[in-house]
């Protein structure tokens, strides 16, 4: 039979963002795939070199638009390592709180988009509705729903407003019930299972060879979670389990993300209890003036260069909702970072597309790519 290449993207309902999946098909079978990224490149790493350390945070929210808080945290950890600043303990817990709420928001967004790829409209509405509660909570203490600008070098911007803990506990109780409903709608549905079971199999050794991380790797039964393996912030002081599945297919990734949301709720309950009983400062009390805490650095260009400020390299890695992200910040003693570099987990997950798409049918591509959880903003940066 004759073979041909088709373009799924850059404007295609399957892609969830601006990228192009070129597929070589033979009848209904996928013979080869060629993912093309780069349509959303904004030069965020280069722009960061021209901004003060705190101003880079405004770019991080635009870097990944469904997990902005996780990317703020990633950059801040790198910048703090480069500048040799330690945040107070309460700020550590607040960052864990932000990270886990963001994980809930991101996974709910993934759930909504994924079930819509399968053609299920009602679960999509439920996912978006419940994500809105998380966004409401974010708005109540950062002032915005998507672009939070909440973290600062050496801490966070402000403390939680009064009554926040009670409101978020209500949301967590509400979400706990909803997870059961999602499972009844999806796992209990034979249509869902027949479209997802055994699709897009990516086994552990192959996933590791391609640098695939996050829920895709854990769905293959590999126990790898940076929150456990290399704890950052306050993750070594909270109790949770690593979500695992062994089927390595689309259903396995669904199960892992659902379990991760339950674990996030568990972490959040512990963090909220800790925050109730340990008031304190949220910003380090001794910061270099030019870091802008709370004010931004000013002055004639170059006046800092004749003084000796600490230099250093910062490297940080966090478990972002999509996988393992890494940041590298070089501080050469100036007002701006000399170089900022990020590792995007979704870029690696997408680059391995040929391993989990070849051999399946064209109609299987939307559910398989939906289970990858693509966020192109961080792929291209």
């Amino acid at each position: 039979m004759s073979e041909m290449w088709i373009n799924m993207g850059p404007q295609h309902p399957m892609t969830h963002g601006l990228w192009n999946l070129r597929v070589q098909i033979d009848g209904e079978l996928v013979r080869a795939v060629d993912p093309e990224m780069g349509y959303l490149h904004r030069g965020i790493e280069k722009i960061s070199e021209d901004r003060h350390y705190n101003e880079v945070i405004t770019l991080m929210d635009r870097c990944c638009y469904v997990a902005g808080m996780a990317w703020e945290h990633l950059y801040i950890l790198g910048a703090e390592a480069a500048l040799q600043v330690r945040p107070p303990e309460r700020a550590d817990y607040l960052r864990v709180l932000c990270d886990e709420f963001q994980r809930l928001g991101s996974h709910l967004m993934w759930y909504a988009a994924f079930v819509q790829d399968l053609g299920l409209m009602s679960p999509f509405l439920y996912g978006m509705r419940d994500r809105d509660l998380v966004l409401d909570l974010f708005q109540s203490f950062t002032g915005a729903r998507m672009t939070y600008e909440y973290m600062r070098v050496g801490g966070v911007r402000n403390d939680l407003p009064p009554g926040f803990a009670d409101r978020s506990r209500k949301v967590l109780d509400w979400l706990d019930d909803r997870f059961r409903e999602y499972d009844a709608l999806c796992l209990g549905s034979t249509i869902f299972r027949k479209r997802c079971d055994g699709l897009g199999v990516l086994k552990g050794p192959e996933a590791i060879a391609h640098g695939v991380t996050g829920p895709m790797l854990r769905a293959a039964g590999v126990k790898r979670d940076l929150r456990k393996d290399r704890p950052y912030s306050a993750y070594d002081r909270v109790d949770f389990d690593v979500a695992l599945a062994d089927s390595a297919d689309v259903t396995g990734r669904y199960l892992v993300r659902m379990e991760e949301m339950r674990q996030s709720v568990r972490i959040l309950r512990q963090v909220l209890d800790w925050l109730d009983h340990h008031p304190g400062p949220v910003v380090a009390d001794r910061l270099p003036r030019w870091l802008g805490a709370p004010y931004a650095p000013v002055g004639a260009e170059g006046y800092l260069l004749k003084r000796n400020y600490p230099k250093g390299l910062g490297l940080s890695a966090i478990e972002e909702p999509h996988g393992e992200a890494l940041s590298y910040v070089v501080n050469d003693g100036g007002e701006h970072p000399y170089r900022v570099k990020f590792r995007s987990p979704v870029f690696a997950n997408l680059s391995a597309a040929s391993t989990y798409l070849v051999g399946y049918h064209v109609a299987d591509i939307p559910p398989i790519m939906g289970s990858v959880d693509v966020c192109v903003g961080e792929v291209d940066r």
Partner: protein
Amino acid sequence: MTDGTAGTAATQAPEENPVLYVARPMATAARQFVKSLVRPSTIVYPYERLEDPRFRGEVAVASGKPIGVGAVWDNYRGVHALNIATCISCNLCAFSCPDLCIEMVTVPGGDPKHPKKCPQIDYGKCSYCGFCSDACPEGCLTMTTRYELSTPKRSEMVYSPQKLNEVFRSKLPMNPIRLERPENEDRILLDPPLCIGCNACARDCPTACITMLDVPKPEGKPGAKLPKRIWKEPVVNDSDCVRCGTCISVCPKECLFWGSRP
């Protein structure tokens, strides 16, 4: 599933009556539909607003049941409000803006030698990050809950200080967050051998916290050449200083700098 192994669920699709596997998810959806008849899951925007006082306690209505995510609107970062009367023209908002959308323009009220300058904000560029209101030492630039900005003219996106002052006078709820200054904040220090006593820092200081004090002339050998300068040096009153750095940027000899020495 409490042990974290999500894969223990059946990996094979359950075989069952085809009528049941259509009917069961539909029953869940129908339950939600009936609830949404009582109360929609969303705020019906042009008719209801999230900032309405009646939503203050009980926002985020999910499927007919208010679960009480209250006060989501209190810290909102919307259009700025500027109190011109308390603005000290320190420039910190313009310096801290990542989008360079703040320009300091002259407003009436200053003397001819030292014109009063207040921020003018271009909302075509603004990203509402709030760094400017965080930086404002006097609390005169704050953010409000106003967010409807659409206009047919691009020039109307630029808000002059007077227009921002009208927003302030309209008594919209203000963002209550005020950042506290760290206790051991860096302060302005002087490199005495470089100073020429030119008075530029004291002249431009927005809070007038710099005074020029006399320094004694060094007693060298008679006839030795003394450096050509005015024998005065700036002394900064740290409790009044807002750390704006204007003195550093106007100093012609770069003899002022940030430091932590007592």
